[in-house]
């Protein structure tokens, strides 16, 4: 490979191709473990094998795109915002998983996302989030009878 050609290879594109290949192998492995009785026609294995085959071919196609450097140009990104939103989601999941209830979990997510979008008033946003969570909970859990996670706060309502 000439240096100029190597310059255009997109490592992110190669990573995508590798992930697709890994997914294809995963489907293939999982499908080969299925225990089968005799079935007429095609059994539950055919479609997964088709999908795995397709993914493998597409891994190749994406690798070609990566070698051609045919991926779109990408702008620099703000990693803090990314981490704040994912952190907010993780906190929501943890709070709900540990029985903290819907309303406090909502407040944390709201404040985290608002901060990710450039707000610098965490306390205010937490309060707004609490209010929004409360309103949502009353509307959906009480009025529309949907099941939302219940914690100490929700039991008081």
């Amino acid at each position: 490979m000439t240096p100029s050609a190597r310059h255009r290879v997109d490592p992110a594109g190669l990573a995508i191709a590798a992930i697709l290949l890994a997914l294809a192998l995963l489907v293939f492995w999982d499908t080969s473990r299925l225990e089968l009785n005799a079935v007429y026609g095609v059994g539950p294995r055919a479609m997964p094998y088709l999908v795995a085959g397709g993914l493998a071919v597409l891994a190749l196609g994406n690798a070609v795109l990566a070698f051609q450097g045919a991926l779109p140009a990408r702008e620099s990104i703000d990693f803090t915002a990314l981490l704040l939103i994912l952190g907010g989601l993780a906190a929501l999941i943890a709070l709900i998983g540990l029985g903290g209830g819907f309303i406090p979990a909502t407040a944390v997510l709201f404040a985290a996302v608002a901060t990710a979008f450039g707000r610098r008033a965490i306390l205010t946003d937490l309060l707004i989030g609490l209010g929004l969570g409360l309103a949502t909970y009353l509307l959906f859990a009480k009025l529309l009878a949907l099941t939302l996670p219940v914690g100490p706060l929700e039991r008081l309502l």
Partner: protein
Amino acid sequence: MDTFASLAQGLAVAVQPMNLMFALVGVLLGTAVGVLPGIGPALTVALLLPITFKLDPAGSIIMFAGIYYGGMYGGSTTAILINTPGESASLATALEGNKMAKAGRGGPALATAAIGSFVAGTLATLGIAFLAPYLVEIAIAFGPEDYFALMCLAFVTVSATFGASPVRGLTSLFLGLLLGLVGIDLLTGQARLTFGVPELVDGVEVTTLAVGLFAIGEALYVATRRHHHEEVLEPVRGSLWMTREDWSRSWKPWLRGVAFGFPIGALPAGGAEIPTFLSYSTEKRLTKYPEQFGHGAIEGVAGPEAANNASAAGTLVPLLTLGLPTSATAAMMLAGFQQYGLNPGPLLFAEKPDLVWGLIASLFIANVMLLVLNLPLVGLWVRLLAIPQPWLYAGILVFAAMGTIAANPSVVELVMLGVFGVLGYLMRRFDYPIAPVVVGLILGPVAESQLRRALQISLGDPWALVQSPIAATLFAITAVALVAPFVMQGLGRFRADED
């Protein structure tokens, strides 16, 4: 004529006071959510699905009709006033509409979009009413191999033929098909790709995938590149009303927009971009004021907006008659039907004519409501646009999480929401279309069961798949549709239907 009787029967269902109220609520919610920047019609439907969980099927499907059309209206308002098309089908509207708003002609731009949408919606809904019974008759004759072939065609056209890059579109589609494999195989009871996680046994929830990809993915994408762009909201200045000249320049583009939008939407190909861009370039060629194009020509709003709405209504034809969703929004509508165990297709027309025709009649009513509500209330919707971005996205994420956990009270579901959010972010960053993932997830299992049914009948002989003339023809078109984009790179100008 049969259609009139059925339509009258549907109208009788739709004008029941409860159903009128459902339509009104749907229209209001659809517009309110659709107008928010970054939320297109598919996400609007996905976010509002949980609200209808506890309603009866007829009422909630009528509400859906309202949400669907309302989301379309709301989206065009966003495109005109902040130049942030929530979906690529609004790109053309944003092109001219935002220029008009900047020049102080935001009112007429919104008006021609609203009235054009009304004209298009009404004509296209009439089209549905007349075309659907014929398609149903054809569809009744379809065997499983024909359905399988039709789905293969839809897969290819949705992901490869009209996308920016066939390889990327197919990659998206196969990710969707992969997700569709997860769960219990209905015919043999075997668990596939569940890895011992009990929550995965029932498969991947369509709403979780759509909300993750669209809402969380979009929030991550916008947040991480916020420092590159600032959105500017154009205030609506001057008169809302269209002048006589505006009218005379608008009505022909509306009708031409419908002529482009409805047939292309009704084909099992999906994509509102092609008709909107065809309409835009046609209006640009036919106009008496070519110098205004690019600086706010009203024809450039009227035509594409009508084309967009007509094609959105057109996608309801394959959805209702064949159970074939060809856009992310249609896939969400299908998820709404499936929530009640209803499977759109010829059988639904026979078994639940009240429901289907009630839905079609409600589309007319929703359209009238939107026209009446939107012109006077546009000021109210504009105020929604002014919600500060941090609170807007924080609110969207709260509702996304709420809808997900309400649909399936399990932490695993929320983890999946987050994972799909990251996937949606990466797909946006690397420019993979998103709609094919949703279509793949929802159509993949259906295609598999049709394939297996076909091969069961033929005792495993794969040649049976192409012995039916319908299937053979459809497979041939599929092959052409798959190869064509590689041959004619020119088609790559059009982006895949995406939200």
